[in-house]
């Protein structure tokens, strides 16, 4: 009495197992088939979208080239000045020449100015704008009061498009009057001053890449 039902149930159980496996297989197959079909559709769809994007890219690039050429043409002077205002490297020698030219330009008999020394510090990128680096410079100068003020004006106007000179900034300045106190109305009064300033340049491409 006990063997018979189990005997019969075994084959049923086997059929049930087969049914379950078959069911899982069918379900898995349907799901994967749907995924596969979705992928196929996606691939076909992507092809048309890629073609459309490439067409848009060509239009945008043409537009960019037109804009860039127009901008370069109209702003050639601007771009050249920007190259001077923010040179692509520290440019010690150019800077030394710049100061020499400036001082030579304002040095006149009776209204003199003389740069006694020029010291460059270690260049380093700015913390908040690392695409721009700073080159510290310090110098001692002796000159007339009017030339001293011209020097201040020269530094204060640097970096503007109007001046077209390299961007500089006075960080500290100490000056004293050799012959007693300050004479505001005397432009020839001798002033000895030492300045510490920053000059700026574009961070080196090599440094930026590293």
């Amino acid at each position, binding site marked *: 009495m006990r063997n018979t039902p189990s005997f019969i149930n075994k084959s049923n159980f086997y059929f049930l197992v087969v049914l379950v496996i078959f069911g899982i297989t069918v379900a898995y197959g349907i799901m994967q*088939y749907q995924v596969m079909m979705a992928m196929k559709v996606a691939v076909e769809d992507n092809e048309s979208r890629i073609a459309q994007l490439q067409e848009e890219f060509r239009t945008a690039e043409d537009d960019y080239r037109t804009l860039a050429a127009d901008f370069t043409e109209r702003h050639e002077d601007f771009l050249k000045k920007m190259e001077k205002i923010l040179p692509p490297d520290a440019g010690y020698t150019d800077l030394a020449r710049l100061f020499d030219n400036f001082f030579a330009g304002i040095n006149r008999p009776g209204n003199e100015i003389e740069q006694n020394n020029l010291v460059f510090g270690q260049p380093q990128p700015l913390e908040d704008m690392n695409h721009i680096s700073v080159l510290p410079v310090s110098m001692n100068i002796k000159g007339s009061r009017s030339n001293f003020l011209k020097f201040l004006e020269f530094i204060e106007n640097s970096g503007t498009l109007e001046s077209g000179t390299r961007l500089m900034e006075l960080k500290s300045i100490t000056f004293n009057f050799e012959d007693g106190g300050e004479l505001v109305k005397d432009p020839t009064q001798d002033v000895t001053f030492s300045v510490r300033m920053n000059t700026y340049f574009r961070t080196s491409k090599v440094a930026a890449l590293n």
Partner: protein
Amino acid sequence: MAENTDKNKNILPAAQPVAAPPALPAQPMVPEQAASQPAAQSPSASPQEPDDSSYKLDTSGQPKESFGFLKNLLSKKSAAAGDADDGNAFTKLFGKQDPAMRSTAPSLSKVLGPQPKISATDMFDKEKRRRALAGRAFGFAVFAALAVYTFFYLQLNPNATILQKHFGPNIAIQFDASNARLEKAKTDLNIANYMRARVLLDDVNSKIDPYQKQVAIVTSDFVTDSERAIAEVQEQELGAEIKKKLVHVQDIFKAPLGIDTFSVEPVTPMQRDQKFQALLVQALGERKQQLHAAAPEGEVVETNALDNVIRLAENQYFINTITNSNLEEMETKAFSELLENIRAQGTDEHSAVQNIIKQRLRWSEVIRDVHAVTEKVDDLYGLGFFDTVGGIQYNSYSFDAQTGKISIRGTTKTSDSKTFSFISELVERIEGSRKFKNVDLPSFSKSKDEEGDYTSSLSLVFELQPADERDPRDDRLTEDLEVIESAQPESAQ
């Protein structure tokens, strides 16, 4: 056979019905079946079998001849002994059976029908066949499962490249490659768009200063009407030109950076844009490296442009500022502020230069401010009358932009003994100025010279006061001094 019989016995009770429904049609019994039926199982074959029809109900619901045998028994009891030929005991008791009824009443075998053919051997064989069938079905199912799994594994796994040589890349590889190409196409488009935006913004940048200059002229009280009218026209022209370019830039920035690609995991638009922004920056960096490798000494402008585009792509706050601006309804003042904001937030080189310039101290102006404050105390300051008239004389200045500290060394000379009051007034004037704060003069000392004048050395240290900072001492001291100044002439009179 004995086992089979046993099994048959075991099966039979289960298969034997308790009572067949009366409605079942009577089945004619095959002779063989009838022969094989045991007597106990075939009651109709027995002559002593009571007529089961006597227990049937008639249509009225009353038993049919249900008490007939009792009537027969009572009426024929006395003649029972000599009347033996009339039948056996059952006949005498129950009466003779109606021949019509005998012929029409179905037997139990007829009611039950033929005995089902149930055989353990058959069952076993059938089970064996079912098991064999199940085994084959199991094998087929497993094979099908493996085949399905293998097929889809080979199709949907990008790492399954075993059949790639023969059948080409599977659908998953094609899918990945297609998505990658789509992403690249979109990134290329983003690069081109952002480069366009950069050029447009550079153009805007180059027009900000001229525009602001015209705005300043228009709002100035120190220009003629004709100058203002010319400035207004130029301001409107420049403003319209800038707005037109900014609208173009807005269109570029408002377009989604990402593109919807098919993926298993759901992706939000924000995640997609972030991904494509990273792809944009990465692609620009790669392009920059390629340019650098190809022309390390040249293409400076091109690499600079790429640098500016990279910074623009990373500056989401700046992009949001431009995107969220309602340019059409913006008035001159708001537009001017927006341009200032664009300049301040811009990460391009021109904006960076402008920001440094904006923060740069103009020391010549600081010197003029010091003079102005000093002249309020000594109106002959710096005119060369110190030796004769006295007053204040500065010998050296020291400015530090980093700390904003100003140190001045000098001398004061007064004809009376109120030298310290004179110095105090200078200190108060400096403190009261909106330009300076935190004057430090810890000690006072004076001496009388040969001419009877009192001189005192001066060492002032104070700080620059930012333009947007208000020091409570400014107003109070300035007001006090103004009161003192206004009161002095009255007291003198």
